[in-house]
């Protein structure tokens, strides 16, 4: 063993090596922590809008509506609910309404509209809905529906559009609805057009490529 090897293994040298290693490790942790902090801040900036919506929905801030979670207890009195299905001019879908149902007030019911695309091209549709008579609208509670949602039907595809609803028993105590014996739920489907269809495909990520292959006339 020569002199150099002796000095390398003195306690002082070992201590210095350990401190150096510790300093390196601390530097590494600092770098990782800072990188993590930057990532977290970037993620938070993207999450700001949904977090604000979350805040609004919890607190009701900004007038965000709070709704009840369940249907009230059904009562004996019954009401007829009719369904109406329409398509706008230029919308080639075949759209059919379910048959009328008679439900007890407060009783939940499920019906299904049917849509079919008889053409050889995909069509993106969206539906408006209305409840008539107007004064009965506030008592017609939808639990599940296809309102305001874009619906894509591929060539020849047929799809059911379920609607779950109940009629609030409070309608029986409303003088404005004393003569209301039937409520009509009416839907009208509109063709969103090729531009909206293209945007829909673009915004549906991994499904897009598969879908695009079936679209005629799109680049």
């Amino acid at each position, binding site marked *: 063993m020569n002199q150099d090897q002796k000095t390398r293994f003195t306690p002082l040298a070992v201590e210095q090596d350990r401190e150096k290693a510790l300093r390196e490790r601390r530097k590494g942790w600092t770098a990782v922590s800072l990188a993590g902090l930057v990532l977290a801040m970037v993620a938070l900036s*993207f*999450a700001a809008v*949904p*977090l604000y*919506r*979350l805040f609004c*929905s*919890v607190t009701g801030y900004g*007038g*965000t*509506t*709070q*709704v*009840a*979670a*369940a*249907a009230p207890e059904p009562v004996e009195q019954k009401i007829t609910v009719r369904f109406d299905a*329409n398509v*706008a*001019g230029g919308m080639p879908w075949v759209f059919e309404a379910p048959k009328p149902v008679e439900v007890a007030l407060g009783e939940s019911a499920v019906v299904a509209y049917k849509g079919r695309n008889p053409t050889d091209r995909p069509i993106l549709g*969206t539906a*408006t*809905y*209305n*409840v*008539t008579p*107007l004064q009965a*609208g*506030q008592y*017609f*509670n*939808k*639990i*599940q*529906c296809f*309102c*305001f949602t874009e619906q894509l039907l591929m060539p020849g595809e047929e799809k059911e559009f379920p609607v*779950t609803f109940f009629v*609030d028993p409070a309608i029986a105590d409303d003088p404005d609805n004393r003569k209301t014996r039937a409520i009509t739920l*009416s839907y*009208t489907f*509109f063709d*969103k*057009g090729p*531009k*909206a269809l293209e945007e829909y495909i673009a915004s549906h990520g991994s499904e897009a490529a598969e879908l695009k292959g079936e679209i005629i006339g799109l680049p």
Partner: protein
Amino acid sequence: MRRRTFLAASVAAAAAALSSRAAIAHSLETLQQDLFDQEKYFQIKEEPAPEFALQDAKGNSVSLADLRGKVMVLHFIYASCPDVCPLHAEKIAEIQEMVNITPMKDRVEFITVTTDPARDGPEVLEGYGQAHGLDPVNWTFLTSGPSKPEDTTRKLAEQFGHSFTKSDDGFQTHSVVTHLIDQNGEWVANFHGLGFEPTNLVMFINGLTNANVPHHEPDPSLWGRVRSFF
């Protein structure tokens, strides 16, 4: 232990919050937010609509208060406008046609206001709708009438946030905006220009006409709730 309790409470609070968020899907507020995200020409407004008291082609007075209870689609044009006004009128006619095939027909009023009352007399007002496909069943062309200052409607346009500036040759430079006013006289949205998707405006009108119809969305999966936020 305290840390675990805090973690559990946080998770429970987040789950409850996500649940209530899911419950408001399909509401007018959600529709408004969706349009804000998707339709670049859509602008949310939250203020009372400027008051007005004008008259139609027959001289009948029409005020903002008279139209309470109906959703109003309002825009400004002048009949001799050579370029963008006819296109705007035809876009409104397209929207009207879509609305009028639904039960919304009785719940929506389309209002056109002239910014050139001096030249847009009763005959011009009467003929304009037919020429541009506007159905008088729920469309009215308004002017200020002879008893009011000539710039009344241009000042009204300014209150709606845009101006019609007259030049010496009788033309007016202006922007193109379609205003949406709800049943309570609240100015709730603008659709700018002519490039917006017509069904988006129709959906928004539909949301306004259904503001009184309650919706209760069933609880989706936790992952679905998380995804719905992003």
